[in-house]
């Protein structure tokens, strides 16, 4: 068995990995999605790249980070961001681009600038789609965060890998069960947020 304190430490590290990557993912995805809404060529480029990136196995992604960035916490973050950014960008783009044209015309008629239309018309209407993407992304991030322990990012994955190496089932389980509980609670939390936003944004 693993002592309780190191386990708590690992959980904390795991959550740091997941949420830091999510935050970075959101910061990177937002400009990409907004640019894609306005420029056809950018959207084509972004969507093609993203669709291809989606079909690359996450383990390959984690492995290729080693020669490119190195090992440790930061490379782990890079791997998680690369692996989990796809649903954020995709859903944000779809949500922003598929706004009712009538509403945008109304906004223009009222004299809103392009920025204001994005901020006050497109974005609020896209919230449900964006949150669905975030939820999916959080779950993927959690999965890859377990995996990045193999490149030294720490977290719950480290306990799992140590257990696997020594064939200590109890140890692997003590890493795996918290990881599953975190996944389930992420799912529940984001679903609740999604529901709240949905009831607010229906017009």
């Amino acid at each position, binding site marked *: 068995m693993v002592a309780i304190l190191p386990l708590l430490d690992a959980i904390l590290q795991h959550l740091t990995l997941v949420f830091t990557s999510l935050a970075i993912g959101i910061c990177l995805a937002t400009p990409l999605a907004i640019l894609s809404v306005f420029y056809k060529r950018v959207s084509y480029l972004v969507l093609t790249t993203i669709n*291809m990136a989606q*079909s*690359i*196995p996450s*383990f*390959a992604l984690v492995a290729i980070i*080693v020669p490119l960035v190195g090992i440790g916490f930061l490379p782990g973050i890079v791997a998680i961001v690369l692996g989990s950014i796809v649903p954020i960008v995709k859903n944000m783009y779809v949500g922003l681009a598929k706004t009712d044209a009538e509403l945008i015309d109304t906004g223009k008629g009222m004299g809103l600038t392009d920025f204001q239309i994005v901020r006050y018309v497109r974005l609020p209407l896209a919230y449900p789609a964006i949150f669905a993407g975030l939820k999916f992304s959080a779950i993927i991030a*959690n999965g890859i965060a377990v995996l990045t322990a193999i490149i030294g990012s720490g977290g719950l994955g480290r306990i799992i890998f140590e*257990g696997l190496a020594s064939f200590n089932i109890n140890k692997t389980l003590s890493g795996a069960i918290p990881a599953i509980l975190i996944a*389930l609670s992420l799912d529940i939390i984001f679903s609740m947020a999604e529901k709240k936003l949905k009831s607010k944004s229906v017009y």
Partner: protein
Amino acid sequence: MTNIIDTIISVWITHQITLRTIQHLYMFSIALIISILIGVTLAILVYSNPKLANVWFNVLNVIETIPELALFIFLLPILGLGEKPTIAACVLYSILPIMRNSYTGLAYVSNEYVEIAKAIGLTKNEILLKIRLPMALPLISSGIRVAVVYIMGIVTLGGLIAAGGLGVPLQAGIYRYDIPAIIIGALWVGTLGVIFDFIAWIIENRLARRFNPW
């Protein structure tokens, strides 16, 4: 240039990448076939009963959120190390996309067609086989495409629990800091993933054009 080719060849031989690729595709195809069979069968069983379908989807949704590696750990005591838990994990993950799409395709066939079929005297089973199933094919295949991507990813992870496949050179590369092995392994796995996704996309498009009634 010759240097690069030499490195590629030596990595290819020392890490037995041909053999690993065969193992990889072997597990991949078995997992894909099993999950298609289970997914489509389940959808056929529940397509006329939305409540039962919802129960299934909730259960499968929970499995979907579990990290792949953690799922492996849970399968280890039951199935041991190697190919079996890998294939089982692939199947558990990819039933949901296949079943959800098949269910949507089967259950939401436009009522007109079903009414016409009833009017010319087809039984429920005939309607399923001759109307619902062909019209659901495009959706089923897009579910299978999602499953193809999942299975590719999980089979690669199988390398970590001694299942063989292309995860092995990646793992060895990471542990020994063997950079050429990592780069070649990762690029090869990535390319395979993209190629299979592309093939699935072509099939999906063909079926959509052939069976799209709109």
